[in-house]
């Protein structure tokens, strides 16, 4: 079967998966105690019945559930994700506003972690049992096991408070009025700490996975054969071991890439990074149904898409795998 028809079939399947996710999420979020009208009345510090009714009427929360679902799904089909109750803006525009910040953060962290993770993992595997291996394994384990928010806070304390090298919160220096290169430099300076913090965790994950996977491949007969044939060790590692060991890493990268859109709740919160992760967290606490569902929708669409891309990448990396 050709690649094109495979992709089409997977996309159609993906649409049904998405619809199922939308419907499931619709009920899931409504199963949580409280509703947006109550939370907003709570914030207002007052709730006569008229006020709650006004809010419910305005948001259509007083309609029967199946009607609300129908309206929502009808909207989603036309890519209309509705109105955010709490932020008083369309969900699409809110996501649109936050998306660049999130992509910048998660994308940078993704590149850093994939690059350094695979490199460190490969190095550890090539020097297995030596001190380089022990060092990399230990450091990776530490970063893998340490909670992200703690690393984030310590990074702020060290680099921002004590050393004063890097800004500790936000994405730009508010009110500085930078333009051009200075503006880009300012964003990059703000990006360093959150991207490294987020990247460290994934670097550790990739390093551990690459090392384990390579050690497994090194035991394979074809590697022994290559050694027996007298192929140079560097070439064996690069061509025979690394390439074959990359499949699980690609799977993981696919999952991480799919989740990029969802943002990084903890990192974005600690660094006051104006991304989607924080938007989602606030929406959850405020029971902002439409906003939450909108973010879930976009991020699950990305997961579906990146799963497909991952499967396609397999076929390039390992010609033995065919599309079917």
């Amino acid at each position: 079967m050709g690649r094109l028809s495979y992709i089409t079939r997977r996309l159609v399947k993906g649409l049904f998966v998405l619809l199922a996710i939308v419907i499931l999420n619709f009920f899931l979020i409504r199963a949580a105690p409280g509703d947006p009208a109550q939370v907003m009345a709570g914030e207002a510090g007052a709730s006569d019945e008229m006020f709650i009714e006004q809010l419910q009427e305005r948001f259509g929360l007083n309609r029967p559930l199946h009607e609300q679902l129908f309206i929502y799904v009808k909207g989603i089909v036309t890519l209309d994700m509705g109105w955010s109750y709490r932020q008083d803006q369309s969900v699409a525009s809110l996501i649109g506003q936050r998306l660049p910040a999130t992509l910048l953060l998660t994308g940078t962290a993704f590149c850093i972690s994939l690059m350094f993770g695979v490199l460190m993992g490969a190095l550890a595997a090539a020097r297995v049992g030596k001190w380089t291996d022990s060092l990399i394994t230990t450091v990776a384990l530490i970063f893998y096991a340490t909670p992200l928010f703690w690393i984030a806070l310590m990074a702020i304390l060290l680099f921002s408070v004590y050393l004063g090298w890097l800004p500790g919160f936000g994405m730009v220096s508010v009110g500085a009025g930078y333009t051009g290169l200075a503006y880009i430099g300012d964003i990059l300076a703000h990006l360093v700490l959150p991207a490294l913090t987020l990247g460290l965790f994934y670097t550790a994950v990739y390093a551990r996975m690459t090392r384990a996977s390579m050690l497994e491949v090194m035991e394979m007969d074809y590697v022994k054969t290559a050694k027996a044939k007298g192929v140079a060790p560097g070439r064996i590692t690069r061509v025979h071991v690394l390439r074959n060991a990359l499949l699980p890493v690609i799977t993981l990268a696919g999952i991480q890439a799919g989740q990029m859109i969802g943002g990084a709740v903890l990192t974005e919160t600690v660094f006051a990074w104006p991304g989607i992760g924080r938007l989602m967290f606030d929406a959850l606490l405020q029971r902002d149904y439409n906003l939450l569902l909108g973010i879930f929708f976009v991020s699950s669409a990305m997961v579906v898409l990146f799963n497909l891309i991952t499967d396609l990448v397999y076929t390039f990396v390992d010609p033995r795998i065919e599309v079917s």
Partner: protein
Amino acid sequence: MTKGQRAIALAMAAAVTAAAGSALAEEPKRGGTANVVIQPEPPGLIMGLWQNAPTQMVAGNIYESLLKYDQELNPLPSLATEWEVNDDGTVYTFHLKDNVLWHDGEPMTADDVVFSVTDFLAETHPRLRVSLEHVENVEALDDHTVQFTLKQPFGPFMGIFEVGSMPITPKHIYEGTNFQDNPANNHPIGTGPFKFAEWERGSHIHLVRNEDYHVEGLPYLDEVYWHVIPDGASRAVAYENGDVDVLPGGSVENFDVARLSELPNTCITGGGWEYFSPMAWMWLNNREGPLADKRVRQAVLYSIDREFARDAIWNGLGEVPTGPVSSKVRFYEPDVPRYDYDPDKARELLEEAGYDGEEIRMLPLPYGETWQRWAEAVRQNMQEAGFNVSMEATDVGGWNQRLGDWDYDMAFTYLYQYGDPALGVTRNYISSNIAKGSQWNNVQGYEDERVDELADEGAVAFPDEKRQEIYSEMQKIIVEDAPIAWLLEIEFPTIYRCDMKDLIQTAIGVNDGFGDAWLDR
């Protein structure tokens, strides 16, 4: 006094000295930027539409009302310069300033006030609506005179003209429109000292000086930035780093307050909450279980070391309340039965009531670590006195629902009292206010006929001496019945750079805006 409390006391003393110095001699300086923390991010900045705390904190710079209040709750001029009340307290006449412009250049007149009260806020402001029930008529006598005629005297009426309670909203923008969907909602137009400039969602809100402000020479600052920083620890670091100058009350967790107060050029004040007079308590479900028995509820009060919690968790700020009315609110009655910490007395009462160790479910307030720790301290106190208390975790949505459904035994909360029992106290004790779905009414289900009568009489009695008599009797009955467990008259500490002068000038503190503030730099 611990080391932390000493540091806070020093920073508070510095605040007092700085304020006294500024009042005595210094000439305010023009210019500069204030960087302030805001959390959570407000949903909108139209004060009449959104009555939550973050909206008021930012939009208090943009909007104004007829009056302000000093820290003793006496009225001060704002949009109104003078006012008169007739002899029986039913007609209030306000004379407005004649040089007030909206931020778009249109003149502000008495018609705007009438429109705001009778059209806009009557539809959008649930808290004001309750007070407006006493109003028969509002009319503009001329361009700069407004008259409110009441159906009968309403004691707290002079107290409802604070900007959060009655923000004056432009008639020329909203008349005849759907208020909620008006495109102008993205660009608030008020009369206040600062104008809206920009809002980068998730990052910051930017306000700039109103060059046409109606008070000569004000404001002093050029601009104010409100920074959205969602994490409490990061807000503390932002102050430590010098990125922000003001942490309004409640911006950082209480355990960070002592550390921050040790920083150079740092002042702390508990002032600026007098109008709201927030009081924290535990709702006790009077309807069922052990807490339906008055003696068990009294035992709860005796079992809690409220001074300890105030000192250990609230850095020694605030007063331990003696009853339902905060000592900062008018008609407070100190001569009531006391519930000083006495675990033995609590045990006796429990025995007398035949409490058999039945489990009591406690809901902490899901507002961060401070409230969690407080709940743990109270639980430990109560366990020591023989109660069997379990803690149940919720988030804000869940907490709202549990209280609205009366599905709890004890629940932490705090509510504003708005300076007068008729505005912010009796709502929690009258039986006509027992209804599911709200967290601000008589959630505990307390019923007492005499209290109902006194609350009704107190609201409309005239003059104040009469009201004092009525509310004193009411407070004595309620304290004896212990329908809820009063914990603390909260003073949320505002932390700021000492060279930011005249920051807190009124009874609502930074919520009244930065109109008087200036930087001595």
